[in-house]
């Protein structure tokens, strides 16, 4: 047996100011999509396909695979309308999924057959679709917030802490907590807006 010795800490150093942001390689996925790069659609599908299919499964049940295809085809055809400055690709795709699901039920005239839904009148479908999509958009957007904002928003809304309690727990000034909460909610509301655009 050969034991391979690796010298520890051969490259330890502090990062310079220009180096600190994760860069990735080349243009962003959003930029590539906007410029019509078809491979970008595949990357978009790889990244968000499972989320769209999971959402479609809840919204339309057995027709989820077909709905997912419609969503990505629509995303490709309307890619010029995607503005990465306004919000994330994930929020944009959930919006397309939302409207495709609503169209699906309008076209079929059937009552929803999702497992968790009680049998109800047709008029209840759209609000429920909206509720489910909104909740998913926010959950994902929360995960994408910078750590400080995410912590503050989660402590405030999922753990019901007051601002002073959050300030004490995180050992931050109260003003900073309020600022994080405000900025965090602004970002979440922006994502919600993108998901609700027709």
């Amino acid at each position, binding site marked *: 047996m050969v034991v391979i010795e690796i010298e520890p800490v051969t490259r330890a150093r502090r990062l310079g100011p220009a180096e600190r942001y*994760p860069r990735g390689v080349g243009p962003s996925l959003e930029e590539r999509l906007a410029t019509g790069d078809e491979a970008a659609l595949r990357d978009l599908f790889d990244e968000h396909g499972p989320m769209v*299919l999971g959402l479609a499964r809840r919204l339309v049940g057995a027709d989820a695979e077909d709905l997912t295809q419609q969503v990505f085809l629509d995303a490709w055809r309307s890619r010029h309308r995607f503005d990465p400055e306004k919000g994330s690709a994930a929020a944009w795709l959930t919006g397309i999924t939302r409207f495709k699901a609503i169209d699906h039920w309008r076209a079929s005239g059937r009552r929803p057959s999702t497992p968790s839904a009680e049998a109800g009148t047709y008029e209840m479908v759209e609000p429920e679709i909206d509720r489910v999509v909104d909740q998913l958009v926010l959950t*994902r957007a929360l995960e994408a917030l910078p750590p400080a904002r995410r912590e503050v928003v989660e402590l405030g809304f999922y753990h019901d802490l007051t601002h002073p309690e959050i300030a004490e727990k995180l050992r931050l000034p109260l003003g900073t907590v309020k600022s994080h909460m405000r900025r965090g909610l602004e970002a979440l509301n922006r994502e919600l807006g993108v998901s609700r655009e027709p």
Partner: protein
Amino acid sequence: MSRDLGQPERPDAADVLRQGPSDIIDEAPPPELWDGIAGELRLDDSGASTAPSAADGGGGEGGPSVVPLGDRRRKRSERIAVAVGIVAAVLLVAVPLWLAYRASLDLPDSEADLVALSEGDPATGRAELDGRDLTVDTSGLAAPDGSVHELWLLDLTDDGELADLVSLGIIRDRGGTFEVDPEVDLERFDVVDISLEPLDNDPAHSGNSILQGELG
């Protein structure tokens, strides 16, 4: 109460958050799902005015060739396979036996001693990589008020230049196990870094690395 979302009666982010997190889980698409999308795109390219049919089961047409979807990924995995093959050839049978030996002892795939960057800093740590789980343990890390410790993987070139970096999250209670995103190439991102981060709105690395170590 209404914000400018265009629909005065609709709940805003605060209202939706109060309902708790979404319980929708991801679902892996079957391979033919993408084939159907690629197939439709081929038809669009050829100028045929075929509207996607709602009744279509989604299976791709047999005729048009599918978008070479996996090409970029196959090439990368092929490159890695070639690189590993070369290394293995150089080390003859030693590497596979060594890895199998380590695996049989339930040892991690690779590990690192984390060493403090500041002279005299008593902080130390250890990192172990098992598949895609990175477990770190530290001692002597002290976070002043308004700061946290964040865990990163760095991609350094052979010259020590920083090519890229990725955050694995905030370290609580001196350590933890962190799942490395499948997109992160562990062959490249092999330097573990723990930084002291102020709780500001800046997701960038603060530049203040406390511990570093190279996985091997």
